[in-house]
């Protein structure tokens, strides 16, 4: 029983981090119709910003916003100087469909190589603000620590803030209108280009939080080659697809589903299925519900 509860708790915490990553993927997809495979690289870079802030200011609560701001700035920069140009150039031609995908992969490589040249290949540490030792009830230790609680609460708060922004503010209305119909948005006076940049920077900030939490939720150390970031790369995408790619709520649900499934597979089937489990889940989802759990039909079919 305690094992079951622990598996559940581990899954939910990991899943909440995947949700943030999935939200980042969804935000970019909605604003520019590009799957940003560089998102995990951007999260890595942001986590290094957070690490620098930790080194100099020694506070996780300063490091987190620093990472978010850094992530947002990097994302905005990439959208402004790179994606805009790319999408204009590759709008036509034989590989117009693949060019953005390949380009974001190229970005991923560039970011990885740059971070590795700047900070080196060795692990560096970020210490979480609270203990990661599990609470104990009676003789049992839960796999749920103050840190995990904090992560969960922060993710919930961020998601609530984000959905408030999207549903209740006029910026949110601009973001949604530009995503669903750029032309009507422009005719309504929305500067769609600027809104796209904003969408990317929100994604960058969201991915930054995912990177910071993924690191402290693990053993606290990370490097450009960390497995954690490969996992973020894949799980963010898969969670976003499970949720239907166009929906923020879907991304949250997708992240949780993915976190739980991975957690249970690892505990009850085999720990060497760590990387193959997400793939199998992805295939199952795509075959059973190609439109995602939430999301428009025929979105990804030819």
């Amino acid at each position, binding site marked *: 029983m305690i094992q079951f509860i622990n598996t559940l708790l581990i899954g939910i915490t990991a899943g909440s981090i995947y949700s943030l990553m999935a939200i980042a993927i969804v935000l970019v997809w909605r604003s520019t119709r590009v799957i940003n495979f560089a998102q995990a690289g951007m999260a890595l870079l942001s986590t290094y910003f957070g690490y620098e802030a930790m080194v100099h200011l020694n506070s996780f609560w300063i490091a987190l916003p620093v990472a978010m701001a850094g992530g947002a700035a990097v994302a905005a920069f990439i959208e402004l100087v790179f994606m805009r140009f790319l999408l204009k150039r590759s709008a036509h031609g034989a590989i117009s469909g693949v060019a953005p995908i390949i380009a974001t992969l190229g970005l991923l490589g560039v970011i990885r190589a740059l971070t590795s040249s700047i900070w080196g290949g060795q692990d560096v540490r970020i210490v979480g603000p609270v203990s990661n030792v599990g609470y104990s009830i009676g003789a049992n230790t839960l796999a749920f620590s103050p840190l995990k609680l904090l992560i969960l609460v922060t993710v919930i708060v961020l998601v609530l803030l984000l959905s408030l922004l999207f549903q209740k503010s*006029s910026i949110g*209305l*601009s973001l*949604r*209108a530009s995503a*669903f*119909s750029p*032309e*009507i*948005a*422009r*005719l*309504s*006076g*929305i*500067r*769609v280009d600027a809104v796209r940049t904003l969408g990317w920077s929100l994604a960058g900030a969201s991915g930054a939080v995912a990177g910071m939490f993924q690191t402290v939720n693990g053993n606290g150390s990370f490097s450009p080659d960390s497995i954690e970031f490969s996992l973020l790369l894949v799980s963010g995408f898969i969670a976003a697809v499970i949720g239907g790619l166009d929906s923020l709520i879907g991304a949250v649900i997708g992240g949780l589903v993915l976190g739980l499934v991975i957690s249970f597979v690892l505990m009850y089937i085999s720990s060497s299925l760590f990387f193959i489990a997400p793939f199998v889940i992805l295939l199952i989802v795509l075959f059973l519900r190609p439109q995602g759990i939430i999301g428009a039909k025929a979105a990804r079919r030819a």
Partner: protein
Amino acid sequence: MSLEVSQLTIHHGAICAVNDVSFTVKQGELVAVIGSNGAGKTTLLRTLSGLNKATRGSATWKGHNLLHSKPELIVRHGVSHVSEGKAVIPELTVNENLELGAIWRKNKKESVASKSEITSIFPRLGERLNQRADTLSGGERQMLAIGRALMSKPEILLLDEPSLGLAPLVVEQIFQTIRDLTTSMGLTVVLVEQNAMGALKIADSGVVLNLGKVAVSGSATSLIADPQVRAAYLGY
């Protein structure tokens, strides 16, 4: 103080969709642009609102050059475009679609006033403010599209085939509303239509486009009386 289109030529790649078109729309006037499918009406209208690029010629509204500007800026000069095919965002609610039109306006009090004005023109929208736009009927969607454009507090309204795909009774209702808007709010309207008779009946004057060129233009009554126009576009 008017819309001046002069020697306007527009290409889609190699296709010349609009060829050397000139006309003037005076303030407060309702002008119908009619022509059969593929005549270049949509292309013309999209260029006036900045969505398409012109090859040659000029187009100004109250002295503002419309040809080298972006749609999001042109709307700030009082030019509102309702594009072809019930231009609403189905994923958003009726209320959000309306708010969209006023999103660039600084004065929020005025926007609220505009909204109550619009819901009094289209009571059915007022009753459905919190429904998603894709639950509306075709006629209601067209009303919403026009309502959204009115939320931008336009001085000139560019309407692209508002009658498309609607039942005759609804068409009549929409045309009547367009006429009322022009008269009561002092709006200037460019009404693009294939439904030539319906459009000319409410219009002050008309421009007939054929294969991208102006075939005839003149007052609405003179066009209705023109035997050639009658034969080609009015069907009798």
